[in-house]
């Protein structure tokens, strides 16, 4: 290819790439812009994109009405905590499945995934009764356990597919040298599998952050995360587009920023064996 053709090609892809990217990002951008409008301006047609009277009033109003930081903190604790707990349980399991597979391994994996297939709403009443009897309603502890269990199958499965890429001989060599299982996992496997573990961690933090059924229905005040925060803005009386936008922006901002900063780590371990 000639140089000119290469530049032309690059230019074409630049145009296409940016158009598609902006199109997909547009709903978020629009939400962000609307959050700085007054309620009146938010439903005005034709819409104004940048030249409107920017205001922070919606954010002040939200701060007056709800304790955003408490909800955000709960979301953070729940999503990170449940994922870390999940990893602690899942790493040994995935290790065993990847390096000492039996003929049941695949079935066990499938069975684990199948526990995710019950629509949560069907199990709400049983869960509510259990939570009530154990005093777990509206506690972070109870929710941590539920979120961990809900995402555990995905965590095990992702780790399993990643671990399978690691040549078993290295681990075997360590075992020959007398390392026990715990050491083998912590000192040999974990460092080699860091990218896979990091990806699993990040992906599951996102999934747990966005979980909106259990976190909404098993909490009231103390443990309520951002899903409950949003429920108080979704459709009050009167104009609410701008306030809704501000609340939405606040609800997704932390995870979006985290996702953007850790994008490289998120992607690196998502290879699912395609490297081989």
């Amino acid at each position, binding site marked *: 290819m000639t140089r000119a053709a290469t530049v032309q090609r690059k230019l074409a892809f630049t145009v296409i790439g940016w158009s598609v990217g902006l199109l997909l990002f547009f709903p978020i951008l629009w939400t962000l812009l609307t959050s700085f409008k007054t309620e*009146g301006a938010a439903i005005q047609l034709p819409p104004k994109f940048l030249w409107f009277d920017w205001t922070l009033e919606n954010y002040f109003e939200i701060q007056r009405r709800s304790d955003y930081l408490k909800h955000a903190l709960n979301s953070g604790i729940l999503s990170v905590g449940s994922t870390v*707990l999940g990893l602690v349980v899942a790493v040994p399991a995935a290790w065993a499945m990847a390096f000492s597979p039996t003929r049941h391994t695949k079935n066990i994996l499938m069975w684990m995934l199948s526990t995710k297939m019950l629509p949560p709403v069907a199990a709400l009443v049983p869960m*509510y009764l259990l939570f009530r009897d154990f005093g777990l309603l509206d506690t*972070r502890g109870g929710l*941590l*356990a539920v979120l961990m269990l809900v995402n555990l199958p995905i965590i095990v499965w992702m780790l399993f597919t990643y671990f399978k890429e690691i040549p078993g001989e290295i681990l075997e060599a360590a075992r020959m040298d007398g390392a026990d299982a*715990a050491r083998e996992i912590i000192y040999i496997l974990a460092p080699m599998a860091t990218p896979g573990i990091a990806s699993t961690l990040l992906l599951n933090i996102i999934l747990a952050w966005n979980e909106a059924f259990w976190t909404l229905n098993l909490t*009231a005040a103390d443990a309520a995360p951002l899903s409950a925060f949003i429920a108080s803005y979704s459709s*009050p*009386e009167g104009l609410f587009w701008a306030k809704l936008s501000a609340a939405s922006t606040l609800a997704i901002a932390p995870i979006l920023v985290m996702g953007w900063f850790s994008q490289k780590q998120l992607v690196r371990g998502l290879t699912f064996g395609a490297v081989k």
Partner: protein
Amino acid sequence: MKTLQRGLLALCLSALAAAASTDARAQKLTIATVNNGDMIRMQKLTDDFTAKNPGITLEWVTMEENVLRQKVTTDIATRGGQYDVMTIGTYEVPIWAKQNWLVALDDLGADYDVDDLLPAIRNGLSVDGTLYAAPFYGESSMVMYRTDLFRRAGLNMPAEPSWDFIADAARKITDKSAGIYGICLRGKAGWGENTAFITATANSFGARWFDMNWRPQFDSPQWKNTLQFYVDLLNDAGPPGASSNGFNENLALFQSGKCGMWVDATVAASFVTNPAESTVADKVGFALAPDNGLGKRGNWLWAWSLAIPAGSEKRDAAKAFIAWATSKDYLELVAGKEGWANVPPGTRTSLYKNPAYLRAAPFAKMTLNSIRAADPTRPTVDPVPYVGVQFVAIPEFQGIGTEVGQQFSAALAGRTSVDQALRNAQNLTERAMKRGGYLK
């Protein structure tokens, strides 16, 4: 490996222990409420209560209506005990009180003046003469219309319009090219949305949900007339997307000047006449909900009310809070801070005798008349075995009402015919009533 397992166990246990120890301090009231304007205002006035009641702190859990309902119902039915005060409506109160789930509110203090509550509202919240929930605000429905558009079309709104007049006026006002739609009505599926409006309208058409033997009546000509009238009217003179419009969507449409008329909750009156929110604030008139000359008007009755679940250990604090929030003093407090037009309406007779309020609220008289015109114990032309104007106060109604509402919205969206929608409604209601044991 052992150490790993032990560590894990310890981690889990400590997480659970940490969870168990976060139990509430003695006098913290957790209040579940709906995110409507009047409640949000109350939340901001919390300081007044805590100043008068040292030792009690308030924790607000504010939610959208549907989420609120599913959470408080689950909690009270399982005796979960997460809330000390719940915001519920006229639908829940009679059902829950019969289950002994609510604390009787017969001792809210001498200066509470329980006899000042509007009789229609008070009756709706009482079972066998005992009050089980205190009304925070009450509403009926009425016609809100644009005086400027009526004048331009040469129309004159009577104080007690008929449906024929409304339908005719709506078609005359409609100017789709200018983005003006003659009438906005609820179309979004839900027992508290379109089903509420259509049921109240059906009452004025002589229709009813059930006969005295609990047999569903959707196969009656009255229902056919009601639904056909509603679908035709909105198709001719309603806004696009009417089948997904609920109260909020219509409020936004009316406030932005797109509706000629809107038949909906009386509380909306203060929003549409508020210049800070509404572009048509000085051009709104009010009339009673329409009728068909059959002796019943299409207006409903609802009161968002505060109640205490029977399991609460903080009854006295909760009663103190409810007495504060629904008192005459609270009305004064809001009036002092935000003006009389913004006080929660529709609960107390004295408010409608207060000259300051009558001056500030042009809609006051019509609201009072609308509330008085609704009678939950005799809602229909023909006799019925149930109470409730825009709902049927049986536990099954939320589910049935929503499914029937889906059929109505499908007819409105043109996905099924009116006849088919009514046939489906009849079948699914029969099915549910059989399951509920009402029908053999």
